């Protein structure tokens, strides 16, 4: 007899959602874990990237059955590297607004055509698609001599659903640590389905609220570390801070 990390969750779900077939339970468990990881950045890993002079795009190494959600921070030779669009480097944001610090009046006080300030020459990074890191300014032996370290947030990949291994390559400690969150979330999704033997809108709302509440707590806890008393409640607006 084997004992897989998903067993405890699936056993509990089988009892609590009578009639739900196992592939349905696994699919919704996968969906809720994906949502949880994408919201909380709970699954993190430091990925070293070997720089090559003149190359801009680098695939981000990930564990099996995992996909990149976001890069949290990066460093090179023990120094933090700013993402493109941050105030420390050239001007790029999702709104396309140039950085105010570089252009205090909002006017072109610097003639960029005459300047050597060019985003492509500044050592910075950006993530235009989840699995590739774009690093600019990779030039010189002193740059390529050290690996570029990126702290990445991961989520479960679709390939998990094809795997029969039962652990989906998620770090083992998470199955116990986030058991209640994933159980509540999966139950909320299952109970909220239309015209199923296990449909129950009242329980769906109850478990969805528990899931959202716990996910907010976990998001703060992960940023501040697993230490007692760190997350608090913000008043009067509400929400974990």
């Amino acid at each position, binding site marked *: 007899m084997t004992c897989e990390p998903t067993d405890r969750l699936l056993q509990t779900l089988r009892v609590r959602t009578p009639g739900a*077939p196992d*592939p349905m339970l696994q699919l919704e468990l996968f969906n809720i874990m994906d949502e949880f990881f994408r919201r909380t950045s709970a699954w993190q890993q430091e990925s070293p990237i070997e720089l090559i002079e003149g190359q801009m795009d680098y695939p981000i190494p990930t564990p099996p059955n995992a996909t990149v959600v976001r890069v949290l921070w990066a460093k090179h030779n023990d120094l933090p590297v700013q993402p493109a669009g941050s105030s420390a480097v050239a001007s790029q944001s999702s709104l396309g607004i140039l950085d105010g610090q570089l252009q205090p009046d909002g006017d072109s006080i610097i003639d960029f055509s005459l300047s050597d300030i060019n985003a492509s020459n500044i050592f910075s990074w950006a993530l235009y698609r989840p699995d590739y890191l774009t690093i600019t300014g990779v030039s010189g032996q002193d740059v390529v001599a050290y690996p570029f370290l990126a702290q990445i947030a991961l989520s479960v990949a679709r390939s998990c659903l094809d795997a029969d291994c039962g652990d989906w390559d998620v770090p083992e400690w998470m199955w116990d640590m986030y058991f209640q969150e994933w159980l509540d979330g999966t139950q909320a999704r299952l109970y909220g389905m239309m*015209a199923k033997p296990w449909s129950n809108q009242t329980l769906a709302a109850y478990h969805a609220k528990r899931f959202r509440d716990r996910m907010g707590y976990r998001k703060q806890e992960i940023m501040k570390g697993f230490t007692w008393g760190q997350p608090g409640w913000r008043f009067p607006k509400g929400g974990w801070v």
Partner: protein
Amino acid sequence: MPALETVGQYITESRRLLQDQIVPYRYPDTDIVDALNVGLLEARRLRADLFLPLFDLPWFDTAGTINTSLPVPMDPQYRSAFVYYVVGRMQLRDDENTTDQRAAAMLTKFVGQMLTIQS
């Protein structure tokens, strides 16, 4: 091994409820398997999750001799519902041995088992 694994087992169980176990049969094998095929279509409409992950619809050939050893890929929790569907569909035909109420009850039971917790 759970019950109702193969086409042959569905035929046998359906005949038991139809009281059609003596040769020559009142309901031919091909009709019973056709009803099973239609039942699978109905189930796909009512409960798509039963056909995860690829949503492939099983279909059993009724031209020629029925291969009774073919497995019917269905979650064990819902296999008996298909027997009720097959029986109900068989009894929909005009037959002195059956009644419309019984056929309707069987088909309703199939839908009920698909959508609610009842046996």
